[in-house]
């Protein structure tokens, strides 16, 4: 549950909804008190209102549920520690239905109707791409947790920022050296034949070549395909590693058929966990993945060397050592991505504090303060690891995890450096007027 009551629904270390509402009710009481009290209240502890553009229904609902839980956990942690500039955060949820047009409507609703301070939390690229123009037009900061390269590419606008999750170009670029050095130098790529697959198609080959390897084949699979055996003969015999980024319901079929095709003598496999986010990695049909490697933004499974910050983050969000909801082992989280919500909210906090943010009149200052940020240290606010922020392209950079599936778990075997994922910026949003 979310919205006003949103940050009260936390599994594990929950903030009691009743307790928190007592706080809200007290605030409401003061808001109707005589004028000077009300003014003083507005200055000191009226909530910062964050409009959460959530995928509550539609194709993104499984991700949306975990983005919401992570958001609630971060808001609780921030509020427990005194909020932002002494003011608590209040989350206002609007469902965009994972629908591009509704996304834009929701941003307008936050700006005009709810009068939130900012808009935050969007995951699906098509919703971000449709919503960003509205955010720019209405001059409301729009913090997305979308992973796509669209923000860094310069095609959004000054009001759209992605400070809490790395983009797919950086992810692809940073895993290439490890693939070439450890999995194999001759790479065959299998990807869905549309924009998401094209990011991998375009960014992996140069990075692999730079690392001394070569992409020997690129096999694009039509998005509506549900059987894949006919494509496997296209995989060259010299292939040492198959780089796969299939998504959608047919992923399990893809893995099973690949296993049936190769038996026990196939090339090594490297995949992106995007394929299997929120899916039990030990599901029937996925046996062939045993021993293969995956990119993970943040590890699904608790690791032996987890920092205290990481442990605290997992407990706060309510995921167990297997990355599933505490007490609901089949509800597997979207761990590789959802940490971005937590970290984005802390970036917003930092930027608001730097800008001495008081209300919507300071929105432009908030954007500038965010752009001025350069580095986030690893710790409770950034449990996934240290980050570097490029204010010109509004994009954060961080290290990536490469995990091996063994014994039914994904164990991190390598962490890339931040430098592994850096690329030449193609834009500078700071030149646009605010």
């Amino acid at each position: 549950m979310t919205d006003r009551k949103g940050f009260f629904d936390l599994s594990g270390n929950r903030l009691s909804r009743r307790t928190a509402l007592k706080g809200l009710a007290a605030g409401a009481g003061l808001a109707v008190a005589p004028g000077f009290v009300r003014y003083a209240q507005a200055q000191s502890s009226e909530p910062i209102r964050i409009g959460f553009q959530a995928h509550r229904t539609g194709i993104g609902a499984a991700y949306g549920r975990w983005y919401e839980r992570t958001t609630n956990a971060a808001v609780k942690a921030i509020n427990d520690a005194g909020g932002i500039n002494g003011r608590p955060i209040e989350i206002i949820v609007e469902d965009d239905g994972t629908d591009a047009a509704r996304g834009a409507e929701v941003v307008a609703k936050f700006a005009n109707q709810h009068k939130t301070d900012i808009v935050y939390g969007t995951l699906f690229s098509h919703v971000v791409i449709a919503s960003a123009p509205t955010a720019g037009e209405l001059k409301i900061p729009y913090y997305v947790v979308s992973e796509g390269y669209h923000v860094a590419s310069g095609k959004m606008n000054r009001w759209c920022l992605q400070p809490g999750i790395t983009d797919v170009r950086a992810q692809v670029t940073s895993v290439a050296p490890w693939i070439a050095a450890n999995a194999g130098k001759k790479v065959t790529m299998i990807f869905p034949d549309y924009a998401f697959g094209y990011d991998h198609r375009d960014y992996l080959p140069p990075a692999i070549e730079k690392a001394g390897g070569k992409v020997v084949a690129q096999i694009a699979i039509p998005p509506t395909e549900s059987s894949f055996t006919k494509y496997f003969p296209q995989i060259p015999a010299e292939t040492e590693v198959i780089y796969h980024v299939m998504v959608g319901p047919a992923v399990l079929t893809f893995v099973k058929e690949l296993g049936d095709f190769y038996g026990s003598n196939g090339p090594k496999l490297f995949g992106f966990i995007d394929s299997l986010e929120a899916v039990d990695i030990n599901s029937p049909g996925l046996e062939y993945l045993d021993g293969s490697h995956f990119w993970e933004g943040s590890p699904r499974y608790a690791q032996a060397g987890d920092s205290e910050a990481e442990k605290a983050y997992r407990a706060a969000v309510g995921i167990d050592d297997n990355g599933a909801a505490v007490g609901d082992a089949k509800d597997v989280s979207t761990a590789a991505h959802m940490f971005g919500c937590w970290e984005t909210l802390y970036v917003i906090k930092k930027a608001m504090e730097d800008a001495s943010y008081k209300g919507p009149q300071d929105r432009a200052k908030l954007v500038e303060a965010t752009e001025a940020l350069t580095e986030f240290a690893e710790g409770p606010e950034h449990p996934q690891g240290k980050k570097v922020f490029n204010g010109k392209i509004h994009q954060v950079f961080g290290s990536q995890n490469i995990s091996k599936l063994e014994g039914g778990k994904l164990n991190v075997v390598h962490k890339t450096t931040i430098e592994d994922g850096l690329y030449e910026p193609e834009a500078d949003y700071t030149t646009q007027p605010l």
Partner: protein
Amino acid sequence: MPAPFDAGVSALWRDCEVPLPLAGRDKGWGSAPSVKQRRDMLCLLAVIAPLLPTSAFAHASDRGHVLLLPTGYYLLGGAVAVAVSFLVLALLPATAPARLWRRRLPLFKVGEGARLAVSLLSFAVFAALIVAGFVGSRDPLSNPLPLTIWTLLWAGLVLVQGLLGDIWRWLNPWYGPWRLAVGLLGPRAPWRLPAWLGCWPAFVLFFAFAWFELVDPAPDDPARLATAAGLYWLVSFAAMLAFGYRPWSRKGEFLTLFFTMVARFGVVERTGRRFVLCLPGAKLFGAAPLAASGMAFILLALSSVSFDGLSKTFFWLGRFGVNPLDYPGRTALMGIGAFGLVLTFLLLAGAFLLAVWLGQRLAGDGVPFGRAAGLLVWSIVPIALAYHVAHYLTALLVDGQYALVALSDPFARGWNLIGTAHLHVSAGIVAGAHSAWWLWNVQAGAIVAGHVLAVLVAHGLAARLHGGARGTVFSQVPLTLLMVAYTVFGLWLLSAPAV
């Protein structure tokens, strides 16, 4: 002699049972951007989207587990089961199933006194939910209005109605207020609905409802739904005052018509004040032939839920060049959705009428086509109910939990009215390979059982139409083929790749 059947239900449907004209006697939300802004944004999106990189979160989803199940055998098995049940019936005396299904077990008597109180309470809850829709949480999974209407009422109550009987008769939120209103205004309605209108107003409103549920971009939005549901209540109430409660409930108020249709399948029957137990579908044997509008209404009930499943399949989306892995959302698919909703209705209605017509030709005993179609259309009810079960099962299991939480705190004030405000919603109940297996089996079981019962009901109704065994069996061959095909279609919908 038809078995006795639910008096209320039969009365409700009587108005749909007018002669067929062609067949003879028997025969805002919110402050959204301006239109221009929105158009501009969509144009921009259409232009730039293909050029932009995107992240892909097309969830592997639980359909992925179903894709690995041997669903092909289920499709085959389901088809065989339906065909075999027809053959078994063909070997039995024509009236044998009807005799069995005519058995009744008296239960208890209930007076009508509580009906007014329950309806008024239901209205009060409905009114509170409308208020919650406007002032409660903006989150459709926290606000009790969308969860009550779409999950508890549309997914849940339909099931209860279908399995038990006409509970809606008590829960109806119009009855109580109408009784109070006529107490003040007098019992006479100023106008009469013309007989030729049949149930067409209800059909039109049901179609609008289906469009809102399946095509509208934001049927879950609390304020949008509160506006739609509140307006519908008011308009219906005004119509009941204008034309009378019973006439409008029979011809215009689609929910009551739909619920009473589904209740025909339930195992509890009301005869006067007494409740009796009967076999599932038994009340359908006693149905009277429907006019064209009643037929269309029943066929729309099945076609709309069928389209809901179809519209999410890769097959359907692929026909229109929509990439299901990059699903754009409902707004971009509104035209396709409206087209599909109409198309599935026309195809189903066409196939049904063709099957009945062919059956009449095969029977060759001169039973009028309109009377046959109007009677046999009742056999669609078990199928519609089975589709409903299969289609809404997962939503009911998960969103039903959200509904319990939301109802405890309807206005987001921190209340805990029914002690469920802090319930942890277990989404895992429908997740994973194991859940996918049992959900698939329940869904497939419902689809096959629904069709087998449909064959049984159609057989019983055909026996009424034709009397003799030969006419009964021959008349049912085409309709049975249609039901076999629809079994396969229904199972395919549940097992095909879908978003």
